[in-house]
């Protein structure tokens, strides 16, 4: 059980690291004052396999996968966040 918990922790830590690196590279491109993030030789599989695959999967599917892998919190009530219909101005002819 403890080994599984450690594995999940490692999975999350590594995946977050390489996803953030990838996002930084793409968002920072051409923005003044930014540089290329340091990239070592390690993590080839994460960078070349995991990141492109993760990016192809829609968010809703990823959320469901995280739920089924028990990566999301249990014992908590998810927020309702029920928005009202957005307010709209009256039609111009009234």
């Amino acid at each position, binding site marked *: 059980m403890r080994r599984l918990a450690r594995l999940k922790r490692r999975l999350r830590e590594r995946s977050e690291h390489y996803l953030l690196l990838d996002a930084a590279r793409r968002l920072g491109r051409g923005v003044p004052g930014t540089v290329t*993030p340091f990239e070592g030789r390690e993590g080839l599989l994460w960078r070349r396999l995991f990141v492109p695959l993760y*990016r192809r999967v829609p968010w809703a599917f990823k959320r469901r996968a995280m739920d089924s892998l028990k990566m999301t919190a249990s014992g908590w009530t998810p927020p309702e966040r029920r928005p009202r219909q957005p307010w709209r*101005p009256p039609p111009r002819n009234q």
Partner: protein
Amino acid sequence: MTERLIVIGGGGAGTAAATVARRLNPDMKVTLFTEFPDIAYSPCGIPFVHGGEIPKFEDLFLSTVERYVADGLDMRMETTVTDVDLARGTVTARNTHEGFDKLVVCTGFVWEKPDVPGANLEGLHYVKDIRAAMEFDKRLDDMRRIVVIGAGPLGVEMAGNLGHRGLHVDFVDEGPWVLSEVLDPDVAEPVHESLTERGVTLRLGTRVEGFSGDGTRVRAVATSGGELECDAVIVCLRKLPSSGLAEVAGLELGTTGGIVVDERMQTSAANVWAAGDVVEVPHGLSMLPIRGLTGSHAYAQGRTAAFNATGHDLVYDPVWVPWGMVAGEYTIGGFSIGEMLATAMGVPYVLAKGVGVSRARYYPGATRTHVKLLAEPGTLRIIGCQIHGGEGVKERADFLAFAAKRGATLADLAWMENIYSPPIGALFEPIAIAAQNGLAELRDRERAAGREAVVTA
């Protein structure tokens, strides 16, 4: 028989848990163990004393041990708990076993140490304990060059403040801009300018490879960009949960390494709660557990644990994490996620951007406030923001986090009411400007695509 509550840890969460529990149930015996000699001070203020913005460290103390004792708490200062036996209901400290009926674990965090040669040299300083900070501050007067490692929030505050003090600061981080794990690159640009104006040399995209010294004390930092001479190094890497004691005791740890708690701050064991930097709590948008939040989160969690440990029923909500900080002369803030985190996680979003002023534009001291809102495509519920400028960043981030928690949309914000009073608020609220711009852009895009505009604001 009198019930006994033991609290392990004397930070924000621990002191909140102990004092609130005692207030809720004056008959309960409440004992607080802390390994440190001091309590009830603000470690977050330490960088600003180093920088001279706050005159002295004593100003950071909010209360005294004697005050807590007078309030009826059993205070065990400089007493490290070395073991917790959940089956017997005891903790061990100074080779003595003490029984408890209820336990609250608030053991906080430790700073990650650099995993490179020379990391054990003297002169590597970690900002946490106020007494160590007082000693370090005395030595700073004889120093000229400091290397700050890690461009997270504390690193930015330390670099900016030490630059303000007149020291030469090399600021090293592997990331492409400061705070790159949360901050968007367009928001980072003015922060870079502000730090540079304070005498900070930014060394971004740079890896630390080792430390070298004159036998015992650090004198230089080897990096992928060359060697940096220094009189001291300030290490501001990741905050790691101090969850070793809890793990050995058998409490469940989560994917961040923090203690798993439910919405009542209860751990996986009966009659044991946990709070503060050692626990993980879910993010309101993704329900993914996160940790290492602010002092106000720690206090609220400690309070929740106290309510439930004393037989009340109090629920803590998933968090939307409003944040803000001064970076050099500039203020930045936001809540939840920005473009950077949304892109990394793969969360779809639409953007709404705007610039306004913090007071009437003619009133002295008015500053420009840049607002960037992220909203869920389709529903247009807001899911994150980043703000930068001068005054009013904190209040806007707090408000938007609350609004998001209640499901507010771009349309709600576009037509929000706001205070117009020349010395404190402009006619047009920057948040409303951003939301209106975002809706207008969406409407134009829909019309250009030949669809009937759904967004009519």
